[in-house]
């Protein structure tokens, strides 16, 4: 990256360095608090213990299985939710009447904790990946659908007009005009959808699953293995951060390429 020193002139005062220092300081304070007896070990063990467990856990077999299971669930939920979300967004845009009728439902679902529906899904589908998948993909679908609809509606009418005047086929119009024009707003919807898929999957694993990172975290919590629980929380956080950085990078790349 080629950035001029924005905010903070000297090397030591660069924002990333300050951020890292803050994290270290918090960890140090927590460590001191735990070792000094300020915090019960059952509430929170010292970070050094968590990290030690983290290393052991990451090397263990069950962890890899959990990671793969959760990863696969998230990917499927996102794939499904993203696809259906795109289709719904296109539908609402293409047929404004359907948009006018159904859009408020979607918006209110956006603000509703979809997870509360799990008892119903549980009753219908039983334990297992199905209800998890349904909740996570529904959560992923909503921002994708709404962003897609807004993106398509924001396209200046001159562009489809141009496509028509050049006798573009329907496919050409979508592929060469509408899609690229909408992408800068659709991609943030996809990024949000992915984040929702992760949240939905892990939250549902807590209550419904017998495998996966969310399940394992809850399991350690219930069996009072607090250091292990925190190690899992750390793993989930780290994976989430990595994925988020990746998505942001992807988003910026797309925006740049589309410009």
């Amino acid at each position, binding site marked *: 990256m080629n950035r001029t020193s924005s905010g903070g002139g000297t090397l030591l005062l660069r924002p990333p360095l300050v951020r890292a220092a803050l994290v270290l300081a918090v960890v140090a304070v927590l460590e001191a608090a735990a070792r000094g007896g300020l915090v019960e070990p059952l509430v929170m063990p010292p970070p050094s213990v968590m990290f030690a467990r983290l290393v052991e856990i990451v090397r263990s077999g069950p962890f890899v299985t959990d990671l793969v299971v959760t990863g696969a669930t998230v990917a499927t939920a996102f794939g499904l939710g993203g696809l259906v979300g795109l289709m719904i967004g296109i539908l609402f845009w293409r047929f404004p009447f359907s948009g006018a009728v159904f859009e408020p439902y979607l918006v209110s679902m956006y603000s509703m904790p979809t997870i509360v529906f799990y008892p119903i899904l549980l009753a219908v589908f039983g334990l297992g990946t199905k209800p998890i998948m349904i909740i996570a993909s529904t959560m992923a679908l909503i921002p994708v659908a709404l962003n897609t609809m807004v993106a398509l509606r924001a396209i200046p009418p*001159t*562009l489809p*007009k*141009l496509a028509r*005047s050049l*006798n*573009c086929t329907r496919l050409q119009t979508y592929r*060469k005009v509408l899609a*690229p*024009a909408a992408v800068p707003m659709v991609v943030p919807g996809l990024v949000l959808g992915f984040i929702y898929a992760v949240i939905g999957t892990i939250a549902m694993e807590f209550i419904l699953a017998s495998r996966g990172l969310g399940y394992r975290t809850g399991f350690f919590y219930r069996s009072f293995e607090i250091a292990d629980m925190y190690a899992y929380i750390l793993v989930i956080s780290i994976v989430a951060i990595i994925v988020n950085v990746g998505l942001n990078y992807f988003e910026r790349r797309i925006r740049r390429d589309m410009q």
Partner: protein
Amino acid sequence: MQRTGVVLDRVGVVYTTNDGGSLEAVRDVSGVVADGRFVSLIGPSGCGKSTLLDVVGGLLRPARGGVVINGEQVSGPRRDTAMVFQEDSTLHWRTVVGNVAFGLEIAGVGRREREARARDVIKLVGLAGFEDRHPRELSGGMKQRVAIARALLLDPRIMLMDEPFGALDQQTRMFIGRELLRVWEETRKSVLFVTHDIQEAVYLSDEVWVMSARPSVIKSKIAVDLDRPRAPGTMGSRRFHELTSEVWELLRVESEKALDASGELRTTP
């Protein structure tokens, strides 16, 4: 009926508004753009000039009447017709070359050929050096020239241009106008050209159609009997001034009507 050129036959356009009402934009417009002629449309804002161009371009079905091009009823966009829209129509994710070549790309011309040809036209409209830039790096007037180049590259028989120089300053406008005339004199396309600029209309055209306020009719068709090729000196000539004053007089009355109708202005004559 005339076999060649563009024939507008009692065209009337009624829009359906969002609240379910209807708005009569164009009442009754007839006229002929004979093959190879340059015709300007001038009229108060909102009188239906863009609407009329959409009808001729096959993008809008009129409520009454119709358009016949070279003997064929217009029922949709045609290969021999190219449009330059009033609003920015550049594709912001494509370079200037990609934008200019877009029409040929849709027409199925191979990449190498269409890009080579695009580069030639880009020079013609004075955008040399900007071939690989994106629209966001261009001014409004430069984007309009990209749209003009895209239309020119299709080498259509008929060009429909909606205020293509609207975003340009007076000097550049004159300059590009002259370039357009040069190209036109070489290729002799039929042109239907919308403008707000009376001098531009008279300078470029064989005929100026003055439209009334909405719902519009053609109030007058003024034949421009200035010699071609036109030179900058043309604008100093007496005939040029007579013609522009004539258009101005017709237009003044209509513009006042249009503003009056929209309640923006109350003038006492």
